[in-house]
Each structure stands twice: as structure tokens, then as C-alpha cells.
């Protein structure tokens, strides 16, 4: 049984259909990536799964439970969260308070402190800037914070929406290293990326999204060698 199963998902913005009945699944322990051009509907898919955008048709099942109509804050408590596109850290709060917000669903205060210490070791820069207002961090540092913040809730399934967007090459590598590392520590990953090459290089399986429909799917290796994918997404 898949950990996350999306079936015939349809999402609309007013009259305009952004997602046209897509189906995909993420199995426990996998890294699955959803690649596609700008405007293909990746963010819409991610946000509708978390209840940020209403779902018109179709179902989302998580851990065997139908969560199509479950409000997002409850989904987080069930063990699934998301690093949203554009990071969306709390600019006016300190780095430390951002991490505390990430642990909003955790009650054990001692555990939270341990987790913060661990995150600050994993992301040194956050440790150094703990008491700084988050809005003053650089883009790459904000991405680290967004990922650290999401990890605070101990998700079983972590979704990341274009975590490498707008970052310098050094930070892009860092972001992918962190995702790989975090996956190894036992978290299932659903990764949305425009940087298809990088995403496919760490993923087990992949889906290609094109104007709201899934045009291709398969193992990451197959897609890396697929002529059409090479041409459209790998710049080869």
C-alpha cells in the first residue's frame, strides 16, 4: 500500500482547470519527484494535497486514510508536511521562533529543545543566527531554515516544492545533499523541481507533469535516459 496515493485529482482556479485528473503514488521509503515546466501545475498539486487549495474531484489517501477533505493543520499532525514554494519562512520572527513554529504540533518541550539543537548542528548557519530575525537571512539560509522548520514536526512524508529555486549553485548542491541525508534517516520524500537533472539524480521514481496532466512516469533512471525527457527537461 502506498503511503500517499493521489487519484484522478482535479483542481480549478475559478473556471480554469489547472490539474486535469492526475494520479500518482509515493511508497514508504521512496524519493519521488514531480518534474515539469513553469506553470505545469506542480505547486497546485502540492498545495491541494495539503488542503491549501480546494480539490474539485478525485481523492488523496495518506497512510490508508482518505484525507481529501481533511484540513491541512490536521494533515500535519498525521505526519505529512511541506516546505512550500518560495520558502515562506516567518520573516518577522527570529530563526529560533521559526523553528519553534515548526514544532507547533509537538508537546514535549524537552524533545523540542533537543530537536532544535540537532537542527542547529545539521544547519550550522541556523545555530549561529538563532536569535536573528529570519527576514535578514540570505535566500539560501532561508531555504535551510524552511527545511529545518519542516523537520521539526518529524514528518513521515516530507514534500518540498522547488527547494533549489533561485539559489546559487553551492546552495543548490547543499539542498540536494540535505534531502538525500534526511531521506536516509528514514523520511519519505516527494520532491517538486524544475531542476530535473538534479531531482532525477536523487530520486527513485519520477512523474512528468505537463499542463495539468501526467505525460510520463517511471523510474528516475529510465526518465534520465528517455529521449523526450532529455530534450524537454535536461537541456540535452
Amino acid at each position, binding site marked *: 500500500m502506498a503511503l500517499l496515493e493521489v487519484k484522478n485529482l482535479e483542481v480549478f482556479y475559478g473556471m480554469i482547470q489547472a490539474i486535469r485528473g492526475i494520479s500518482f503514488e509515493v511508497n514508504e521509503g521512496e524519493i519521488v519527484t514531480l518534474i515539469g515546466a513553469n506553470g505545469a501545475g506542480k505547486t497546485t498539486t502540492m498545495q491541494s494535497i495539503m488542503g491549501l487549495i480546494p480539490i474539485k474531484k478525485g481523492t488523496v489517501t495518506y497512510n490508508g486514510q482518505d484525507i481529501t477533505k481533511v484540513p491541512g*493543520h490536521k494533515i*500535519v499532525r498525521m505526519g505529512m508536511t511541506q516546505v512550500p514554494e518560495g520558502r515562506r519562512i516567518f520573516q*518577522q*520572527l527570529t530563526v529560533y521562533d521559526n523553528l519553534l513554529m515548526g514544532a*507547533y504540533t509537538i508537546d514535549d518541550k524537552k524533545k523540542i529543545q533537543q530537536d532544535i539543537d540537532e537542527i542547529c548542528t545539521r544547519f550550522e548557519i541556523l545555530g549561529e543566527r538563532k536569535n536573528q530575525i529570519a527576514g535578514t537571512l540570505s535566500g539560501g539560509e532561508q531555504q535551510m531554515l524552511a527545511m529545518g522548520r519542516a523537520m521539526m514536526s518529524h514528518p513521515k512524508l516530507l514534500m518540498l516544492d522547488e527547494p533549489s529555486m533561485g539559489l546559487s549553485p553551492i546552495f543548490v548542491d547543499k539542498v540536494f545533499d540535505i534531502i538525500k541525508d534526511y531521506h536516509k534517516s528514514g523520511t519519505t520524500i516527494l520532491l517538486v523541481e524544475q531542476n530535473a537533472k538534479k531531482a532525477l539524480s536523487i530520486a527513485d521514481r519520477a512523474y512528468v507533469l505537463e499542463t495539468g496532466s501526467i505525460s510520463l512516469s517511471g523510474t528516475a533512471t529510465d526518465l534520465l535516459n528517455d529521449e523526450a525527457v532529455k530534450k524537454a527537461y535536461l537541456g540535452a
Partner: protein
Amino acid sequence: MSTFIDGLSLGAIYALIALGYTMVYGIAKMLNFAHGDIIMVGAYTILTTLELTGNPYLAIAFSIVICTISGVVIEKLAYKPLRGASPLAVLITAIGVSFFLQSIAQLIYGSKSRPITLPDFGKMSIGSQEINVNTVITLVVGGIIMAGLTLFVKKTNTGRAMQAVSEDKGAALLMGVNVNRIIMITFAIGSALAAFASLFYLMQIPSITPTLGSMPGIKAFTAAVIGGIGSIPGAMLGGVLLGLIEKICLSIPAIGPYTTAIEFSLLIIILLVKPIGILGKKIREKV
């Protein structure tokens, strides 16, 4: 000196009301124009409880309870269904709620002004100056409430969630925050503060009409905008500033009659010089 204390004390009242406007604006992104009328609800609750029991403390406690419930019920019935609707629709609804509350009060209590007798602790002297003890109570209790609120927002999980929701509802939801619950709590706190404000207001002007809340409501809204709407310290600063200016102007015979005009001119000047208010922060709107 006594003008200064009077000003601070009136400022504390404005600040308590302004906090309700500013917190609701910060978190629900709406102007709750019915907020002033919660003061009126609090005032009539105090009046009725006093008439029935004669116990001023019970009156205050009831007024806090009734105001809080009113705030929460109004949010649930009138504003919640409009979440995501155009700001104009929400504003018109708020004005409708305001008229509704005033009409209810008029039905129950009539439109005539009703006098109320609250405990008067007399005067105390500081140096050579005589000051109403009630004024000092307003100042001290108002100050304690505001300090408590500041601590609550900065140090508790719920307070931090309020800051998070005010910045980015979607991101807050991804942290597991029940945004609707935070909005409800915000209305509850704002309304409870209005209950205190109504008590302090009655200690200064002991008569009640169904439109009692309008003027302090508008003044406090002005204070919230001057301080920077959405900002909690801004509402406190704006409230105190407006209270001081009002009492100082009133104490000078040549200027006294123009006090209200001066206060609203100040609003216009601030909006021209710094449109986001003294302590306002630029917020990027997020979808």
C-alpha cells in the same frame, strides 16, 4: 501633571480598544468596524449586572464574559462565512453588525441615556496635585493588561502562532496551526480587552447610550492607524499618544473646542508622512 496622568489614562483606554482593531486586522486582515460597539455591549452588561446584583466586581466579570462571547459569535456568524470574500463585502458586513448591535441595545434599553454609578475611590494626592484614584486604576490595570498581552504574544505557543498567522496563513497551516481557531482567539482577546475599556470609559463618563461605543471606537481606530495598524506596540503607542493629545488640548481653553479636529488632523498628517503608521511594518501580501 494631572493633565498628563489624565491623558495617559485616557490613552490606556484608547490603547485597549485599539489593540482589538489592530490584532483583528493583523490576523484576519479585516477592519472590524463593529469593535467599538463591543464597548457598548460591555457597558450595558455592567449596568444590568449592577442593577440586578449591586456587585461591581461581578459586573466586570460578566461584562468580560459577555463581550468575549459576543466577539466570538460575531466572528463565527458574520465574518467567518466571508473569509476570502472581497474586503469591501467584509467592511459592509462589519458596518451592518455595528448597526445590528446598536439596534438590539435600543430595543432592550431604549435610546435615552442611562446613568450608571460605579464605585468611586475618591482622590489621592501626588505632591500638591489631586488625582482621581479611578484614573490611576485605569492607568495601572491598563498597563498590566498590555504587558501581559505582550508577554502572551511573544512567549506562548498560541501567541507565536498568532504572529505566524498574521504574517502568512498558509505557512502557519503547514506548521499544524488551526488558523480558524487562532482567528477566534484573536476576536476573543480583542473583545475581552474592550470589556475592560468599557469599564474604564464608564469610570470617566458615567452614562450609557446605544451609540456609546462609536466615538471611542473611532478614536481608538485612529490610534491604531497612527501607531501602525497590525502592530501591537503601535496600537499601544498610538492610543497613549492620542489620549495625551486629547487631554492636553482640552486643558487649553483656546484650543479645547478643536480637540477632535486636531486628533483627526494628526491622523491625516501621519498618513501623509508615513502611510503605514509610526510602528507599522510593510507586509508583502501572499496568496
